[in-house]
């Protein structure tokens, strides 16, 4: 399809979004990522029945945790699409990038950089 999507997106492959844990999402923000999103199958079509529904619950939970500590919860999001929807994948990547650009950089980035220098 040769579709373009923003190069700042780093893809981490998991067998199912049900594998995405609260600590994966929280840890990414803790280490300075500006935003994280999980892309799962359409609701109702999970091969493992409820993997994407569990991922959604976890994303919502992490949003609350981020709000509690004083960060924008919306830095973490969940998107759903079917595996045949390449253009939608690219559109979501673009949407997420624009959304995070509006929020600005993660204020924890400076601490993460300092740690990387150590």
């Amino acid at each position: 399809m040769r579709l373009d999507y923003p190069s700042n997106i780093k893809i981490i492959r998991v067998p199912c979004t049900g594998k995405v844990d609260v600590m994966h999402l929280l840890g990414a923000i803790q280490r300075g990522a500006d935003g994280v999103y999980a892309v799962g199958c359409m609701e109702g079509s999970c091969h493992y029945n409820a993997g994407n529904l569990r991922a959604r619950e976890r994303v919502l939970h992490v949003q609350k945790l981020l709000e509690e500590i004083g960060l924008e919860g919306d830095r973490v999001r969940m998107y759903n699409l079917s595996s045949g929807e390449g253009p939608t994948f690219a559109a979501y990547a673009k949407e997420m990038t624009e959304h995070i650009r509006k929020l600005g950089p993660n204020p924890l980035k400076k601490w993460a950089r300092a740690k990387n220098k150590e």
Partner: protein
Amino acid sequence: MIVAKRKPFNEIKSLLKGYGKVLNVGCGTCVAVCLAGGEKEVAVLNAELDMARKLEDNPVEMGAITVERQCDMEYLEALDSMVGGYDALLSMACGAGIQFLAERYPDKPVLPAVDTTFIGVNQGVGWYEERCRSCSSCVLGLTGGICPVTMCAKGLYNGPCGGTNKGSCEIDKNQPCAWQMIYERLNAQNRLDCILEITPPSDWQNQIPRTVIQPGYKKPEKG
């Protein structure tokens, strides 16, 4: 199992105010099963505290360890070599575990990260309900396996009271009357005679910490 829930984040954060290096001690037994204070919950809380304090430009160094059981000195021993390097200990165990940790390290501030809530059952993942108040005088044999101390709003050993209302409790129509449930269970088992037995009131006065020594064991002599 003992069921606990994590304290609100801001409460934990304010408990740790002024400490720069804190060891978060999880417990691998009851609170791990009820998803309140096991290894994973320790990691999540530490990440939250780390981020929150960095956002305030006042970082805290969080250590993490989860012991098998905090209510057992045998497992607390593993902490002896670590504790000295920390300003305070944060415990995610139940109230018993927190106190035992504080007893082992009396020079260190030991702070709770969870509220111990009840002895209960697992109704589903993450869903727990209270079933026992550990009253020390179990009447379940007479009440069809339904605890009146826990399930009745008045904790009546001999009920129902005048507030029973078509199967509901007077405090809330969605709260079933424990003694109605007991009646129905005993009736179905053809054991209604049990309900006629009078149970003497529990002596709740002058409560001191209770001790249990199981048959075949004895309290070690001090010295």
